[in-house]
């Protein structure tokens, strides 16, 4: 397969890069390791600061991809080897089987019939999901897939036979394709920091302590609770909730850096709760509220809400209280006294870990001590998005567009 641009990573940065390059007439291969596009953005409920759902922006991008014959999308795919240099890269891409072929019409009969359940990775494993499913109603490609671990289950055989379009193929094998590209954009994005590692904040041990990404899924209409925010332990209503900033961030035992978006994310999520529970009280615990640029306006809006109380001081202890409640302790460093707040739900604002930290790129790229890719390291592969540094969606888009300009420059015959 020959192409002009190879984009690794089908999140918002990779999608933007692919679309921008294709729309100036370049051939693009977009490679995504999951069976769906959209990365972390597709898991979000709303964007800040306008609080609009990301689905509208994604839908436009998916249409731009679908309608543009110059973009070839490979999902379930990962580069395993990359040789060459700017102008003549050769990448080996291995593709995991999705066990569902192009015949799929997404009628959903298979999902209804399916009795095998797997952990719901898209919702961070908080619930079970059918082994054959779509991640949401806007999935791209709009085609079912089977979780790899469930394929061997004998019950899957009947489901495969029942598909009237003969779309399910349990014998599908992994494939390898070779892509020759003139330039490569690396946009492998991030994953949330594992909150269970922060032992004083109770994630995984104290009920009703969740992460900010759990909250996005909980608030999302396509999420496990169909958009209803409740206490996970008993689906109870929220009377009081707390946001714990810098949960494992700016902490040398966890992530020593600031992920820059978690403060805005929590301010945004405080609105999710207040929308659903007009009487609920929100407590936000900051070391300092980092709302870069004009986003400070959003902080002021939240501060004006009489039901939202902002504390300057980091939560250092979360313990279980009576009746499914949880108690948080922090020092209010403005008044100089220790404060305890007992809430229904505590949201840990965890930071961003670059995927490239654990999953090393099969190409020579310079990475800093945390795994973020440094673009001035001499490699002609162009990194962009959160793979480079923590940032929000708007900044990822801007940076991806810039990366396309660099990629186009490499394609010019000298």
């Amino acid at each position, binding site marked *: 397969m020959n192409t002009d641009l190879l984009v690794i990573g089908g999140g918002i940065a990779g999608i933007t890069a692919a679309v921008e390059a294709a729309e100036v007439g370049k051939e693009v291969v977009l490679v995504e390791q999951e069976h769906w596009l959209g990365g972390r953005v597709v898991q979000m409920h709303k964007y800040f600061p306008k609080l609009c759902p990301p689905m509208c922006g994604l839908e436009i991008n998916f249409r731009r991809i679908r309608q543009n014959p110059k973009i070839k999308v490979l999902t379930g795919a990962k580069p395993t080897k990359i040789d060459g240099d700017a102008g003549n890269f050769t990448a080996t891409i291995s593709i995991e089987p999705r066990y569902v072929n192009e015949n799929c019409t997404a009628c959903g009969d298979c999902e209804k019939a399916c009795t095998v359940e797997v952990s719901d990775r898209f919702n961070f494993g908080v619930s079970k999901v059918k082994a054959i499913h779509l991640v949401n109603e806007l999935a791209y490609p709009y085609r079912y897939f089977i979780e790899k671990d469930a394929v061997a289950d004998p019950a899957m055989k009947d489901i495969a036979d029942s598909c009237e379009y003969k779309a399910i193929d349990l014998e599908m094998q992994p494939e390898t394709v070779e892509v020759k590209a003139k330039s490569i954009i690396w946009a492998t994005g991030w994953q949330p920091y594992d909150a269970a590692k922060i032992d*004083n904040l109770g994630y995984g041990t104290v009920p009703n302590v969740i992460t900010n990404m759990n909250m996005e899924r909980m608030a999302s209409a396509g999420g496990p609770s169909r958009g209803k925010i409740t206490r996970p332990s008993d689906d109870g209503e929220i009377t009081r909730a707390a946001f714990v900033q*810098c949960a494992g961030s*700016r*902490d*040398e*035992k*966890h992530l020593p850096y600031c992920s820059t978006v978690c403060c805005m994310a929590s301010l945004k999520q405080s609105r999710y709760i207040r929308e659903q529970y007009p009487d609920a009280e929100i407590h936000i615990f900051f*070391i300092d509220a980092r709302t870069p640029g004009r986003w400070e306006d959003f902080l002021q809006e939240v501060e004006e809400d009489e039901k939202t109380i902002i504390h300057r*001081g*980091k*939560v*250092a*202890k979360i313990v279980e209280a009576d009746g499914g409640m949880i*108690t948080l*302790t*922090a*020092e209010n*460093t*403005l008044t*100089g*006294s*220790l*404060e*305890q*707040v*007992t809430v229904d739900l505590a949201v840990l604002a965890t930071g961003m870990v670059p995927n490239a930290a654990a999953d090393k790129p099969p190409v020579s790229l310079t990475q800093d001590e945390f795994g973020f890719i440094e673009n001035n390291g001499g490699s002609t592969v162009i990194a962009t998005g959160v793979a480079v540094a923590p940032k929000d969606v708007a900044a990822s888009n801007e940076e991806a567009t810039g990366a396309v300009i660099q990629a186009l420059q490499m394609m010019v015959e000298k």
Partner: protein
Amino acid sequence: MAEAVLIKPDRSLVRKIKAAGGETVEKCYQCATCSVVCELSPTERPFPRKEMIWSQWGLEDRLMTDPDIWLCYQCSDCSVNCPRGAKPGDVMAAVRRFAFEHFAFPGFMGRALASPSGLIPLLLLPVIILCLIVWQETSGNLTALFQASAVVDFDYFLPHGRTEMLFIIGALLVVTCMSISLFRFWRGMDKAWGAQHKTGFIPALIGVVFEVILHKRFSSCGAARYRQFAHLLVFFGFVFTALATAMATFEMLFLHKFLGLEGHYPPFSLLHPIKIFGNIGGFAIVAGVVIMIYQHITNSENAGKAVYSTWLFIWMTGLVAVSGLGAQFFRIAGVAEFAYPFYFLHLLTVFFLIWYAPYSQFGHMFYRTLAMIFARSIGREAKEMKPLP
């Protein structure tokens, strides 16, 4: 919010705190994890977060009138949980070291104990005094001490009467100087905390004495639990040796000298209560010091930053006990070549510890006790949380 206060930062104090073991102080970003995880910290105005910012700004007035620096037992829970590696436990210890200097009377003594450059003169003083006594007693004829036929006789070498006198004069001086420092400290705390005393001094003192004897505060520590055991050994080691000393003084001064009774003069039998108390105390001190040294070497993260004054105090404490036990052993074994030098070293280290107590880390027992009495008298107890309404 309180009214505006003009703050005058003092960089030289920041440098001093950094040099005294608080080198990480500037890493603090005031998240207050430390105040939450500390089990000894009160609910209102908890520590050590506020001490961290006072240290970063070099606010001597606030730090030196703060009882909280002495309510900290440096169990390192705060340092272990600090997200920035700012080690509040080490900073608190450094501030305490500075306090010995700050309150020292006379002031030059505080400086002399704080750095290695003062060590030689500080050692020379007791060495010269002891040498003069030896010279006078033996008329310079030291060889007589070491003759094969001679019995080891410490009373001939350094007469007990003389050393008792030195001890008593030194102790009176120490008490006088220490009282002046403590008076200043108390007055400062009273002013800074605008405190209403809810409990009288004596009831508070009694409460503190019980707390100290039981080592109650240590038991809240998480990261460095060994401290409770090690400190308990050294503490009771000193209590026992102090009892032995008091008994010996009573026997020698009252029974022997005043009443003229026979058999109340050293050397005492090993089964005599003075000897039993002294030996138990000596061995306890050695055991405690060995644990402390071992932990500082192998577990330096949790044991807290050890600086010159830490080591000086630990080693002097260890030497007092080892030299005392050694002198006794070689006296009984009849090895004069070792017995006299060990006895000399023992008296030297005893005087070093006692005379310089207000200015070395030994002084912690006075400052800490007073701060604990103050805290108790104003009702400043370890945390008992009131949930927000």
